[in-house]
């Protein structure tokens, strides 16, 4: 079983388009959407939810006004300025550290598991999908990502599947680190722009340098700036990163999205061909 995680550093380079196309191409696989705070894969895969579960990534403190003696201790010990002068805890600022709870002399602060989101196992026309929805303004996206990957892996093992295909989050922080830790292969989707190259360098040094995961690069819309594409190719060469392929710019990508189809389903063309080659490249290595 091979777990392939698609990330990008910079947002909007085409991660989900490539991931959805892989759903069309791979056989015997489970899909997982780890972009838990702005998930889009479901818009193409159109899942039918089979099981829906609550996610709790941490606790939340809440002061019971009837028991509070307004001594000021909680305000003093809170490092996140989450408690105001009226002894109300701002749930957005609260990090759930529980230090106020520990030090409250009146034991007037409740500290219960908070529901931070939901996760689902669904059926799609491509097979099972594990996905999630982090509550708005919630924390612990990393924990939810880890949970989604764990469930996808369990499913793959149970059904004897060959691939886990994971749509990752943008950036290089918490959810991305949780998405790639222990993965077999990372595919970075980039674009030939100054921002794309800048962000590629950071995320490649995370995946390949920091975590030492076999890392492939694909350049999406490579023809919008050939010079920049060349710079990216040079970078890949210097860093021993494998260039898995280049995808041309084509309006068919947005058109496929509007019709809720993968680019592979949407008909044969240069984009579908390019992604097919990239998939072959990754699977063979």
């Amino acid at each position, binding site marked *: 079983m091979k777990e392939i995680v698609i990330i990008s*550093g*910079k*947002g*909007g380079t085409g991660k*989900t388009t490539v991931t959805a196309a892989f759903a069309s191409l791979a056989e015997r696989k489970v899909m997982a959407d780890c972009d*838990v*705070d*702005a998930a*889009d894969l479901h*818009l193409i895969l159109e899942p039918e939810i089979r099981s829906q579960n609550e996610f709790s990534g*941490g*606790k939340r403190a809440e002061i019971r006004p009837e028991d509070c003696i307004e001594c000021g201790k909680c305000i003093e*010990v809170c*490092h*996140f300025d989450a408690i105001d002068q009226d002894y109300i805890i701002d749930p*957005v600022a609260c*990090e*759930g*550290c*529980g*230090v106020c709870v*520990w*030090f409250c002399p009146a034991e007037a602060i409740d500290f219960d598991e908070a529901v931070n989101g939901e996760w689902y196992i669904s059926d799609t026309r491509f097979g099972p999908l594990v996905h999630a929805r*982090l509550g*708005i*303004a*919630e*924390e612990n*996206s*990393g924990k939810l990502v880890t949970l989604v990957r764990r469930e996808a892996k369990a499913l793959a093992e149970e059904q004897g599947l060959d691939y886990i295909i994971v749509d990752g*989050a*943008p*950036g*290089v*922080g*918490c*959810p*991305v*680190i949780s998405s790639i830790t222990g993965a077999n292969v990372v595919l970075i989707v980039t*674009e*030939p*722009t*100054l*921002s794309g190259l*800048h*962000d590629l360098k*950071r*995320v490649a*040094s*995370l995946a390949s*340098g*920091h975590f030492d995961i076999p890392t492939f690069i694909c350049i999406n819309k490579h023809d*919008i*700036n050939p010079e*920049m594409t060349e710079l990216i190719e040079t970078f890949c060469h210097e860093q021993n990163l494998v260039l898995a392929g280049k995808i041309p710019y084509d*309006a068919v990508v*947005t058109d496929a*999205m*509007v019709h*809720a189809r993968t680019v592979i389903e949407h008909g044969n063309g240069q984009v579908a061909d390019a992604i097919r080659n990239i998939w072959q490249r990754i699977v063979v290595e």
Partner: protein
Amino acid sequence: MIISIASGKGGTGKTTVAVNLALSLGADIQYFDCDVEEPNGHLFMNPEWKGHHAFSVSIPDVDEPTCSFCGKCGEICEYHAILPIKDHVLVFPELCHSCGGCWLVCPEGAISKKEREIGVIEEGVRDGVEFIHGKLNIGEVLAPPLIKAVKSAAKESHTVIIDAPPGTSCPVIEAVNGSDYIILVTEPTPFGLNDLKLAVEMVRLLKMEFGVIVNKAGIGNDDVYHYCEEENIPVLMKIPNDRKIAEAYSKGSMIIDIYPEYRETFTELYDTIVKATTS
């Protein structure tokens, strides 16, 4: 006045709007790039660098000879960042949220704070606009403390333009919290609309004034406009899907570099926002 530029979906044009707005206004402007995981504003602003300093968070430093191995630090820590075992105390720095619980609770006074660098803050200036960004070190998990540090440079006398990270979770909240107005940048595609809806849910939860800018107008479909109309959300600006703008972007140029008349458009955008926040 603080204006944040955010979006659910990445790559919709947050930085494009933020840098063009900042440089169109010019005087008494601070531009903060709070997308500390992947900051890009400097690629377009090309600031003249003025200084930089490391950014650190506090983590526990355990003096084992003083430690009685009572286990309280491990009990209070919700993040499993400190773990007392028989005659050792293990600290996992990257899990630490710097809540201070362990050094406050230690009855022997055996735990002190020590600094751990997690990123860098760099400052510069371009055409009178003060530029500040944070850059998280590779391998670091926690963006919010660095975002908070960047924002602490805000001056009352200036208009602050915050370039927020994508998404709707804690780093975004840290970036936009305290703003007077939020511009949500989207694109007219199903992904753009889906993530815009999440971003709208977020700003409504925070009870903030906001409006939408549609970038790459002309691609996809009209659903985003119908949505904004139904929800009574003002569409502040439409940036067309223009090959020249896309090419300029790819090289690190701004819209106002190739279409100077856009300075006027961005200045009007600012006036609209001022009106919306004072009415």
